[in-house]
């Protein structure tokens, strides 16, 4: 019996009872739809975490000057003066797992342009900083090591600051004033949006760290060193080595606390992504239970159908259908039911995930969630619904194939 004829017979049988067919498919439709939807949204969420991870920078290891416990009194991080340029240089030179390191000084100050003013965060860094943070300059150019060496009065400007000071005017080449000192804007930073921790990354000025040290805050130590490890795997060992190096350089005795804090936001975000993945898996497995229920529905209806069509089975057997022809016919019908259901479910699941993603994007600010159409998920859904059809269709089909032709022909 050729497959074309089998398919035609199966499709006709399904078309005969449209309402029943649709209701039977419903379980599979909902099951596949729910799985596709949760997986799509979960993937979207994890993509967004990945995106913000990438946005954060290149395998970042962040060293901040930390609080020191002096005679039982915890001092704020700004009070620690022990993190110095030499440390940053030593980190870059002596720890092979660290690819790049940029010294950093932080400040916050009033910035004035014309009759506009804005209070913003000022970062004093080395040119490597922009590489480490994967933060390209959109227009103009970044400062160089020479401008760091000379503590030049230049700055790069973040998009939020531009909006508030310049409006629609081009900031590059203009001069702004910070604490009454003039700084030339040499570059416009590209927009980085929100950090994973909710800060507006674009609300900033970036200058050579020497400039900030000497002209804005008047210190000779550092507030932080921004490093990037050679790979994601290198982050943890690099942290260990960093701690050892800094303790040695700061001459800390074993019983003394660190006077610095090492953090790796990548790890943090990674953990976040991991818990998201587990959640997705959990939801998807709950959703797949309804696939199982859908399969049982198919089995039920196929059993009814076998009973209803006993006479037809008898006729087919009388004219020469073998048991396996009958088996195949009912199996194909069950698989067709579940696969069509799976296809519809896939479509609906996709539609729902697009809708839900749009809703999430409308409610929450920050970088938009992407809609992820997962090809493996689609294939898996299709194969799985086919498998459900075979598994749950087999028993009724086998029952049909075992009918006695004489009895079947006599059946009323």
């Amino acid at each position, binding site marked *: *019996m*050729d497959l*074309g*004829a089998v398919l035609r017979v199966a499709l*006709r049988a399904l078309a*005969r009872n449209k309402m029943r067919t649709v209701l039977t498919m419903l379980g599979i439709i909902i099951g596949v739809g729910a799985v596709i939807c949760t997986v799509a949204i979960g993937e979207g969420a994890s993509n967004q975490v990945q995106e913000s991870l990438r946005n954060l920078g290149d395998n970042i290891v962040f060293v901040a000057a930390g609080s020191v416990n002096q005679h039982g009194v915890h001092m704020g991080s700004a009070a620690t003066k022990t993190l110095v340029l030499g440390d940053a240089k030593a980190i870059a030179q002596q720890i092979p797992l660290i690819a790049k390191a940029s010294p950093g000084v932080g400040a916050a100050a009033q910035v004035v342009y014309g009759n506009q003013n804005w209070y913003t965060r000022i970062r004093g860094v080395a040119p490597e900083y922009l590489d480490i943070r994967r933060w390209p300059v959109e227009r103009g150019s970044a400062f160089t090591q020479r401008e760091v060496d000379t503590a030049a009065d230049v700055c790069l400007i973040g998009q939020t600051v531009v909006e508030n000071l310049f409006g629609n005017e081009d900031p590059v080449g203009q001069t702004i004033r910070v604490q009454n000192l003039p700084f030339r804007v040499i570059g416009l930073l590209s927009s980085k949006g929100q950090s994973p921790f909710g800060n507006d990354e674009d609300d900033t000025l970036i200058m050579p760290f020497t400039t900030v040290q000497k002209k804005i805050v008047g210190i000779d130590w550092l507030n932080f060193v921004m490093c990037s490890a050679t790979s994601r795997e290198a982050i943890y060992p690099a942290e260990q080595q960093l701690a050892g190096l800094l303790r040695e350089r700061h001459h800390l005795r074993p019983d003394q606390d660190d006077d610095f804090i090492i953090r790796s936001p990548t790890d943090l975000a990674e953990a976040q992504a991991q818990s998201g993945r587990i959640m997705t898996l959990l939801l998807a497995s709950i959703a797949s239970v309804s696939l199982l229920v859908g399969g049982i529905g198919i089995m039920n209806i196929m059993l009814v159908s076998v009973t209803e069509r006993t*006479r*037809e089975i*008898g*006729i*087919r*057997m*009388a*004219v*020469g*259908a*073998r*048991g*396996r*022809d009958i088996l195949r016919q009912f199996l194909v019908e069950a698989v067709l039911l579940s696969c069509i259901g799976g296809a519809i479910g896939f479509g609906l699941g996709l539609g729902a995930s697009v809708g839900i993603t749009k809703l999430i994007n409308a409610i929450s600010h920050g970088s938009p969630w992407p809609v992820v159409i997962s090809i493996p998920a689609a294939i898996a859904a299709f194969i799985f619904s086919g498998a459900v059809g075979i598994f749950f269709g087999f028993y009724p089909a086998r029952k049909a194939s075992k009918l006695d*032709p*004489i009895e079947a*022909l006599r059946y009323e």
Partner: protein
Amino acid sequence: MPEEMVESKSATEKPSTVATPVIQVENLHKTYDLGEVQVHALRGISLSVNAGEFVAVMGASGSGKSTFMNLIGCLDRPTRGRFLLEGQDVARLSKRELAAIRNRKIGFVFQGFNLLARTSALENVELPLIYSGVPHQARLERARASLAAVGLEGRGEHHPSQLSGGQQQRVAIARALVNDPSIILADEPTGNLDSRTSVEIMEIFQRLNEERNITILLVTHEPDISRFAKRVIMFRDGKVRWDTEVEDRATASEVLATLPVVGEEDDPEEVKA
């Protein structure tokens, strides 16, 4: 007579010749085991039917004729005895092999027509060919030819519900014919039809028997119908009571001419023939 032919297995695939009976049964028994009671439906049937015969099988209900027909139709297997279909011993074949025999060598016509509902006449006729693996185009051609042979050309697209009883039975005959079987088994084919239509159906059987030399076994209750056959076998209590040639054989086309024309379903083709 054909003792050594029966013995030799080489005769298995031999086409029906005058020498080989189409049906040869020897001491056929069928016992149904219903737990406490054993029902002896057939108690030793021995007979043979040659190619080109037209046999009416008669008997009261419970006489064993239906059991006999089921065995001849390869729908069931005997408890004891031999059954040679065209020289092939089919009594011990597996279910799958029996299905293949039914498909290629036997054509069934039932009292209740047994057509697939909501399926066109053409597709109904095509059905046995699907199971013998005939390609689509050849299937269509043979099914059309078969419908034409029973006077239903051009009705291929009609569904059973759009056809009269006589027409439905003719579709069933076309289906029985389509695989060019050795034998047609008709189980009370006129039981649900009025007398004129019954004669029309018998006319088709007679024509197929005469023109194509097709062997026909026909179960009937009605003596009138049995008169169209060439031989009558009477069953009683699981045995053959008598087995005789029909002496005053009726010719359906002649009988038809004497009957008044009723209903609108008369087919010009058929009246002519």
